[in-house]
């Protein structure tokens, strides 16, 4: 276990390092001169040059890269080209907003997906099963942005039940503070993107759980559990469901990636001031330090999630031995 943990952690470090390197060089390969965005071409050429020197953009790319790495080692993500403020300050608040939307939503999606999938797999051939599968397949194949817009159109514009976007009513909290998360207004704004994302993300665990259940139901140990005199409910919740959870756990890392991708779409459409929206803004404005910071943070989240899922798998299935 100890050795496995060490190997696995070294993989985490290597992945993150590769990620840092990639984000650094990839965005510099993009067309467009970022300096044009930050440094006004109207300025005196000497002043422009002075600015370049200040941001370190006059030095060779490789040198810039090592400076970037050295700063990262000190948890210094640099300064945004656009606001000139520290990247970490910009990201921090956005990260909280994203997590408050994505974590509950993904947890709900997984919990509902697992239970509903187990239920319909257990009641194979029922009308409920057919209906749920139909709806889940439609939801899963629909693009997330389209679902979001439909939801806004119907629930916000037509029924006027929820606001069309933003995290709180504009103007109510000029500065982001923790107090705004404790308001009804926040929950009111959270409701629609939460529901859309949950509904969209629960289809995959639901369908996977159902198909795993179908094969579990035919297992000998399920029959033996019945023979022991367990009630149907006990057979389902003690034997069929826990055993069927294993494939779901293996797909967790993949889902984390989807959650991130989903957050970009959801946040853009609902104007949710999270990391996803920040990334879209940063990319379109060629704000390198900000993009690097945001990407790195998402990489850290995903890689950590994968690591946790790996450990979780060993807990769910005792046959897995870490070497």
């Amino acid at each position, binding site marked *: 276990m100890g050795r496995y943990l060490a190997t696995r952690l070294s993989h985490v470090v290597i992945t993150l390092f590769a990620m840092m390197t990639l984000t650094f060089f990839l965005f510099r390969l993009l067309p467009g001169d970022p300096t044009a965005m930050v440094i006004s071409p109207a300025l005196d050429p000497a002043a422009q040059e002075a600015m370049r020197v200040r941001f370190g953009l006059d030095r060779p790319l490789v040198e810039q890269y090592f400076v970037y790495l050295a700063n990262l080692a000190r948890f210094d993500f640099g300064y945004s080209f656009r606001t000139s403020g520290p990247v970490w300050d910009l990201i921090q608040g956005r990260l909280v907003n994203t997590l408050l939307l994505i974590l509950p939503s993904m947890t709900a999606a997984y919990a509902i997906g697992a239970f509903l999938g187990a239920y319909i797999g257990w009641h194979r051939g029922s009308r409920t099963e057919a209906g749920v599968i139909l709806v889940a397949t439609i939801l899963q194949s629909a693009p997330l942005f389209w679902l979001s817009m439909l939801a806004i159109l119907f629930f916000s514009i037509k029924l006027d039940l929820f606001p069309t976007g933003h995290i709180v009513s504009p103007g109510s909290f000029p500065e982001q503070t923790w107090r705004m998360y404790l308001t009804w207004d926040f929950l009111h704004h959270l409701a629609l993107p939460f529901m859309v994302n949950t509904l969209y993300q629960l289809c995959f665990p639901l369908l996977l759980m159902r198909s795993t259940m179908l094969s579990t139901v035919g297992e000998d140990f399920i029959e033996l559990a019945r023979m022991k*005199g367990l009630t149907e409910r006990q057979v389902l919740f003690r034997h069929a469901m*826990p055993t069927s959870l294993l494939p779901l756990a293996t797909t967790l890392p993949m889902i984390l990636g989807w959650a991130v991708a989903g957050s970009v779409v959801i946040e853009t459409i609902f104007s949710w001031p999270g990391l996803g929206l920040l990334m879209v803004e940063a990319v379109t404005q060629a704000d390198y330090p900000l993009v690097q910071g945001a990407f790195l943070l998402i990489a850290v989240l995903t890689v950590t999630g994968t690591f946790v899922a790996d450990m979780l798998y060993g807990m769910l299935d005792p046959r897995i031995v870490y070497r």
Partner: protein
Amino acid sequence: MHQRSNINAEPVLHIKGLDLSYATAHGRAAALTNISLSLAPGESLGLVGESGCGKSTLLKAIMGVMPSNAAIEGGQVIFKGADLVAGSKEAWRKARWAGISMIAQSALNALNPVRRISAQIAEAILTHKSMPKSELRARICHLFEIVGVDPERIDDYPHQFSGGMRQRVLIAMALALEPSVVLADEPTTALDVIVQDQIFNRLRALRDELDFAILLVTHDLAVVIENCDRIVVMYGGMIVETGPTREVVRAPSHPYTLGLRNALPRLGVDYEPIAIPGRPPDLVDPAPGCRFAARCPFALPVCRVVTPDLLPSTPDRAARCHRAGEMETLASLAGKVETWNRVGDLANAP
């Protein structure tokens, strides 16, 4: 083996005229037809027949745990005087394991791979009665001891045991509530002969000690000879012969039993086992007459028209054959390969 004295006592399990069918794509398959048998307290009854003859189906029907496409169409399963088929589902559920338990066939698949053995035995006990935790653990340890597995290992997972040990664990689980009937579905098929022998010795000793009745299902006649007081031979979902094991094996009253006996290996003799040619009968649309007629070297025209009844010859023996009376003469022919080859030629003829 030791003949039990209480065979004529009130049966603990009595099956009367049980009919069961499976819904298949081609129609309903009559998996069990008019099955009647009884099990006296402490008795061991062997149930033999080829794959698909309905042995395992019968055990599942007795437990009341059948696949969703199976339906009991008639008959009774009387356990300690009460008919489980006619009673409520809940009553049947309560009788399972507490009264009638089962030693499953495949020890690897019958145990849940992700739960500890102790938890799997504990839940069987707790479903039927409440027990303090310390007593429960002591009970599970005791069960491990009586089947010969180290009680230290009750918290292990199934994959941490060898095949033979897993089978012992299943026996321990079956005895958890001191049932009066234990059904054993080919409990040793996956094991080598030495472990197989150990398991049966253990099972016999436990039966003598705890006095439960065993219904042992197997396709191995030798296992029945060694372990069972009485034998029931099944073919195509019907009982074709029944009686005390020794008598039935010494002088079968049905050609199918003769055929099974030919498959027994004999030590020290240059001997080639003889196979019964042909295939098991079609149970969806069974041919008229005796179900074994198509594979029987002694079939008469009447056999293909009239289904014979299971008729007693002595108080404890019965056979379902029109020629049961001539079996002594036929038995000498049944020992020859040519006799069975003749059927094979007929069966393979276009």
